[in-house]
């Protein structure tokens, strides 16, 4: 990227995706705010670090992922119960009018909180960022096979946990 990063444009283009990704990883809105702010402050301060980025979205997701993993590790040493507590209370999906769908979203949010952060990151990038396994692998610095297996494990756990709700939703639709 050329010198003189347009921080406002970067924010407008990518903040929503980064917010959803960070919220999924941290399970905490205040932490998400701090990490997002830290990320954009870093970009504004060290423009040269962003000089070689090929794909803005992937570069920013990588920065966000690294920052979130650091935070999760720090938090794990500080308070091992906090993440579990937050995972039971945070909802990362938009509210919806359909009560059944709302229940499904809340349960999905809780189920995502039960996944290990590595699986959660891959599942999020695959489902809600529509990245391929190759793109996920490059972004998270893992192999495509690892990305695929983490995704498969994660989705299987979600399916096990949400099977009943999902079947009810489907039967109600029919």
């Amino acid at each position: 990227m050329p010198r003189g990063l347009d921080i406002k444009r970067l924010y407008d283009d990518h903040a929503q995706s980064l917010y959803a990704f960070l919220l999924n990883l941290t399970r905490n809105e205040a932490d998400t705010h701090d990490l997002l702010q830290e990320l954009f402050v870093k970009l504004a301060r060290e423009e040269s670090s962003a000089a070689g980025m090929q794909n803005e979205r992937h570069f920013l997701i990588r920065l966000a992922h690294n920052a979130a993993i650091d935070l999760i590790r720090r938090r794990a040493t500080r308070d091992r119960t906090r993440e579990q507590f937050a995972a039971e209370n945070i909802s990362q999906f938009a509210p919806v009018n359909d009560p059944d769908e709302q229940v499904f979203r809340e349960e999905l949010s809780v189920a995502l909180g039960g996944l290990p952060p590595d699986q959660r990151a891959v599942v999020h990038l695959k489902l809600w960022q529509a990245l391929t396994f190759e793109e996920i692998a490059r972004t998270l610095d893992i192999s495509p096979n690892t990305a695929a297996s983490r995704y498969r494990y994660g989705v299987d756990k979600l399916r096990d946990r949400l099977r009943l709700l999902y079947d009810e939703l489907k039967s109600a639709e029919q």
Partner: protein
Amino acid sequence: MESFEQHLRQQQPREIPSEWRSQILCAAEAASVQGNLRMPDTLIARLGWQIRAYLWPHPIAWAALGASWVVILVVNLSLHEPSPMMAKKSAPVTPDTLAELKRERVLFAEVAGLSEVPDVDRAKKNALEPRTENGGQAMA
């Protein structure tokens, strides 16, 4: 992609709070302006930039420390006087001084009861001769 995954994909993530935009962009702008932290291109300017970045947190404290060192140096130099030993070492040796030293040496030899004044140059001359010849003379 199977229907379950498709259904998951359709779940809309929460919207980022709108007030965050101004907060985060203000913080980013402040960070950018704060130190004008863009690295300059030339070597000297880059060195100055790094020094400024290093001293930036407490410039007054660093300036006070530097000033106090300057004051200490000035006071130290103003009170400094050369010692007598240094003055002697720096003074040139005159022929009169050499003659006086020679007289004192002769007088010392007489007082010590030596028959002749030790000649340092002679020992040096012997030291320069080959050892084999020295050994031959000694044997003879």
